[in-house]
């Protein structure tokens, strides 16, 4: 892949126009607007405004929202295919899409009529981008240990705390913040321009370098009277569970995209690169690695598609299948990105080929939206829960 520098403003992103409605149109969009520039996005740790605007024009941000809120009512199986294609092109872009999807879904699922009227039309078009704020400097996997507080004062919700590693935080206009109330941990909608909100960019990441991470400081932030999203108390954990479920679904699809990108890069490279006058592809050890990639990309795709079909049917089994899909796909992405670097040899460690970026990006997927280790605990717990012994 040729590395192309992307200016922070300009006209490099133009055609094709039109809406992204399925895998094919997503593929065309990604091959034109994203994949050729992914290396530059990564190097510059930045996504240009033109790309985000092109995604708005294409209706990419939240097409699953119902038409009366500005979406297209797209089914979640198709949404997964679109996120896979975006993940194939650039995991930083897919990461922004993931957290935005989580926020838009949460407002749609749990929001009051007033919250939905205020936020959904702008989330649907991407006029406002969402970011998911759970992790804190001292709290990651243990959501019950969230230290950020939310108190009601004078009718308004006030939030105090620090959220770290917030994907898309540099660009988001709406933060979905999890904070402690007197009843437990609840979800709050906090506009970026609320008094007391401060955003500090985080750079120098291992992977997904262009996902525009930030630290979000809430200093007695004035979130307003209707900031609470969904129930407070016992059921508030469901807001977090449901939102993370959709995030895992998107990450699972994106990881399948990473494996597909590894496969594409490796079949191309091994067809051109020769050893002892024969292409690398003739070596059986290379073919073994390619076979493993083909097998896992197919299995990973089937898993997230099954999870998506269950979501479309409203079937509760989707929660468990999505956990498995994300766990499988994240591990497969790390494994195959490592093999892709190995196949490329010295060329694999430089910036002239995409596999080094894919390798760094894949590692992030084993950490976000539930680390692989936490998911091992959860998946095993489910097995024991269902056991009759």
């Amino acid at each position, binding site marked *: 892949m040729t590395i192309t520098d992307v200016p922070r403003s300009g006209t490099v992103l133009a055609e094709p126009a039109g809406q992204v409605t399925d895998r094919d149109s997503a593929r065309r969009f990604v091959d034109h607007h994203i994949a050729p520039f992914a290396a530059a996005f990564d190097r510059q740790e930045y996504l240009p405004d033109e790309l985000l605007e092109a995604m708005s024009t294409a209706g990419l941000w939240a097409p699953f929202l119902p038409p009366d809120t500005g979406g297209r009512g797209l089914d979640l199986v198709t949404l997964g295919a679109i996120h896979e294609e975006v993940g194939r092109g650039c995991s930083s872009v897919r990461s922004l899409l993931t957290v935005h999807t989580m926020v838009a879904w949460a407002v749609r699922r749990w929001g009051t009529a007033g919250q939905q009227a205020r936020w959904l039309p702008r989330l649907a078009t991407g006029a406002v981008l969402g970011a998911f704020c759970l992790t804190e400097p001292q709290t990651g996997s243990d959501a019950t240990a969230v230290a950020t507080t939310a108190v009601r004062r004078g009718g308004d919700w006030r939030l105090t705390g620090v959220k770290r590693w917030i994907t898309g935080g540099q660009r988001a206009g709406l933060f979905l913040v999890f904070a402690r109330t007197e009843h437990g941990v609840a979800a709050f909608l906090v506009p970026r321009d609320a008094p007391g909100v401060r955003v500090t960019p985080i750079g120098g990441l291992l992977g997904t370098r262009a996902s525009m991470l930030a630290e979000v400081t809430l200093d007695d932030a004035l979130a307003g009277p209707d900031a609470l999203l969904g129930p407070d108390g016992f*059921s508030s954990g469901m807001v977090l569970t449901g939102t993370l479920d959709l995030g895992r679904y998107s990450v699972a699809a994106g990881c399948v995209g990473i494996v597909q990108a590894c496969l594409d890069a490796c079949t191309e490279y091994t067809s051109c690169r020769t050893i002892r006058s024969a292409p690398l592809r003739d070596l059986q050890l290379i073919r073994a690695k390619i076979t493993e990639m083909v097998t896992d990309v197919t299995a990973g795709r089937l898993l997230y598609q099954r999870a998506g079909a269950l979501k479309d049917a409203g079937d509760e089994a989707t929660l468990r299948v999505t956990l498995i899909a994300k766990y499988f796909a994240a591990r497969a992405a790390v494994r195959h990105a490592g093999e892709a670097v190995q196949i490329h040899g010295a060329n694999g460690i430089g910036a002239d080929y995409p596999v080094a970026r894919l390798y760094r990006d894949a590692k992030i997927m084993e950490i976000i939206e539930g680390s692989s280790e936490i998911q091992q605990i959860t998946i095993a717990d489910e097995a024991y829960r269902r056991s009759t*012994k």
Partner: protein
Amino acid sequence: MDNDVRAQIHGFIASRYPHASIGDDEDIFSLGFVNSLFAMELVMFIEKNFNIRIPNEELRIDNFRTTTRMAELVERQAVAVGQG
């Protein structure tokens, strides 16, 4: 109360916790193994199976403590849908 609703909810809980014997009026939270994942599953099962949408104000722990309470919740929402 519709015994079929109660039986379906009981059947769902039993399928998830086959090692436990849970009566219709037994507090499932007192058994200690209900987590947020199961709570979400329970809400999704009820909404899909009985074709209702549980509003936020009904998502209170007391409505989900027992099979009987959940069946009462289903009946209330079914009436609300019918009137809506």
